[in-house]
């Protein structure tokens, strides 16, 4: 089917500058229908700035941005009526109950009152909060609030869901609760754009990833391909390596990162890293593991602290 190849988002050379600071510096990407696209990057990489332009929160400084085929500068209202947005901060309405939060939000989309209640109750069931429908939102836990924000973003049956760090600050249980819901939505064919700095989240949910830093796109691709290309297959980490190890790595030309007290060696499948390096040098503090997205991320964006 060619229909599945429809562009939901088309961003060409997107730029955002304010107060003399360039937050987004010529970013181009697209999101296809039914796809879950992840924007990864350290703090200040320009992820949030990029998606804030998508829902008209901050005007673009340059470039072209089309959502559902409409130019964002012309058809913003129409575009927003088909979006579901989970902003980074929990901005639930503390003056209203759990159910009212959904009902009042539905009014903003001109959803008829009769439909609203059923839809709201259905969504509360989906996020397993139907037993708390009359409670004040401030009495909910962080994870519950996050799920309610998700339900609120779904009240208009959106064609594109935008999630800005949906699980930041949640405990593992709450995080998995959110992921499960997102996986269900994804399975139903909803197009999703997500920003995160949790690699596990990105590799679990996303079909395709974009890694950003300092307002630019570093790489883009499917998670497995990115791992293979930038971190290989197997990883051996040796703490306080001796010169022998370093010499071996250099002579064999292994992909590696040499830190002060640690060497991280990345090997492709054929390089049989565990046998070649592992058996000989893994005596004490040494880790043998599979390469992960975190390796890719750190290799591309560096290991220095941000901010």
């Amino acid at each position, binding site marked *: 089917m060619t229909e599945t190849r429809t562009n939901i988002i088309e961003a060409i050379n997107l730029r955002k500058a*304010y107060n003399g600071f360039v937050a987004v510096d010529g970013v181009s990407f697209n999101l296809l229908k039914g796809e879950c696209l992840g924007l990864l990057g350290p703090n200040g990489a320009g992820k949030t700035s990029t998606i804030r332009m998508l*829902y*008209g*929160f*901050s*005007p673009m400084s340059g470039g072209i941005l089309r959502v559902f085929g409409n130019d964002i*500068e012309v058809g*913003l*209202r*129409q575009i*927003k*009526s088909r*979006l579901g*947005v989970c*902003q980074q*901060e929990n*901005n*639930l*309405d*503390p*003056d*209203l109950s759990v159910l*009212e939060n959904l009902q*009042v*939000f539905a*009014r*903003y*989309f*001109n959803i008829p009152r009769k439909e609203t209640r059923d839809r709201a109750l259905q969504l509360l069931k989906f996020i397993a909060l139907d037993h708390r429908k009359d409670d004040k939102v401030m009495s909910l836990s962080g994870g519950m609030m996050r799920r309610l924000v998700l339900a*609120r973003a779904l009240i*208009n049956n959106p064609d594109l869901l935008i999630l800005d760090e949906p699980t930041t600050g949640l405990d593992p249980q709450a995080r998995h609760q959110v992921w499960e819901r997102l996986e269900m939505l994804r399975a139903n064919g909803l197009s999703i754009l997500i920003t995160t700095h949790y690699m596990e989240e990105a590799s679990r949910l996303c079909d395709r990833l974009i890694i950003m830093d300092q307002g630019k796109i570093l790489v883009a691709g499917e998670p497995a391909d990115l791992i293979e290309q930038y971190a290989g297959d197997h990883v051996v980490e040796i703490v306080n390596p001796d010169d022998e190890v370093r010499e071996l790595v250099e002579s064999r030309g292994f992909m590696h990162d040499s830190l002060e007290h640690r060497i991280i060696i990345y090997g492709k499948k054929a390089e049989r890293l565990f046998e070649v390096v592992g058996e000989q040098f893994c005596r004490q503090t040494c880790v043998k593991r599979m390469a992960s997205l975190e390796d890719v991320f750190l290799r591309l964006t560096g290991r220095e602290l941000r901010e």
Partner: protein
Amino acid sequence: MIKKLPVANISLRFIRVWSRNLTVYKKIWLVNFLVPLFEPLLYLAAFGVGLSTFIEKVPYHGKDLPYLDFIAPALIAITIMYNAFFENTYASFVRMYYQKTFDAIMATPLSLEDVITGEIVWGATKALIATVIMLAVISLFGLVSYPEGLLILPLAFLGGLFFGTVGMSFTGVIPSVDMFNLPIFLFITPMFLFSGTFFPVSGLPQWAQTLSTVFPLTHLVDLSRALCQGNLQPGLLWSVLYLMLSTAVCFPLALILMRRRLIQ
């Protein structure tokens, strides 16, 4: 990018913001009703019983007016000012800054201008509701002449719109919620005292009289007093026009300042 006029971004969806605030208001309607219900009683008791033993009559348009008749309409005007101004300063600021309610709404088909318009119209509505209650109480004392007194209701809405747009303009520039003390001290309190509210402006020095004609509250008080007295004169239209023009200036100003504050 073509710069659109801020008012061009307003749609009828602003009513959704208004109705959100109404939903919240109705939750504690009793508390919301108590203030306009009892406040005039307190004022009338203090000034009417306490002070009017010293001041029996106040000159008004060549007549002598009993002191209660003089201040009752001013209390209505002050209520209009307070309700709209406080709603669009403190209450709007809390929704914007602490609750991030505006952020959430702006991710829906509503524009920032819809949100701000809804907030201002809501502030005027709140002023109107308070006026209805207060007018009823004051009427029980026989201090309002009807049917002219009914015109106080549209006046309350107009006055509410004006003080709401002024309040919202301050909300657009104020760095923190505590700083609202400043516009209240510089703008609201002088008007509260020197707009012909508790004593006639004619008792003031000439320069102060001139200054007080600039005060929008002076015009609101004049109109309210004339309507309570059933004393309608063509000259009052200038006061209506003054309030309308001031609103027409402050409304786009509020939109511009809020856009500058929230959209980066």
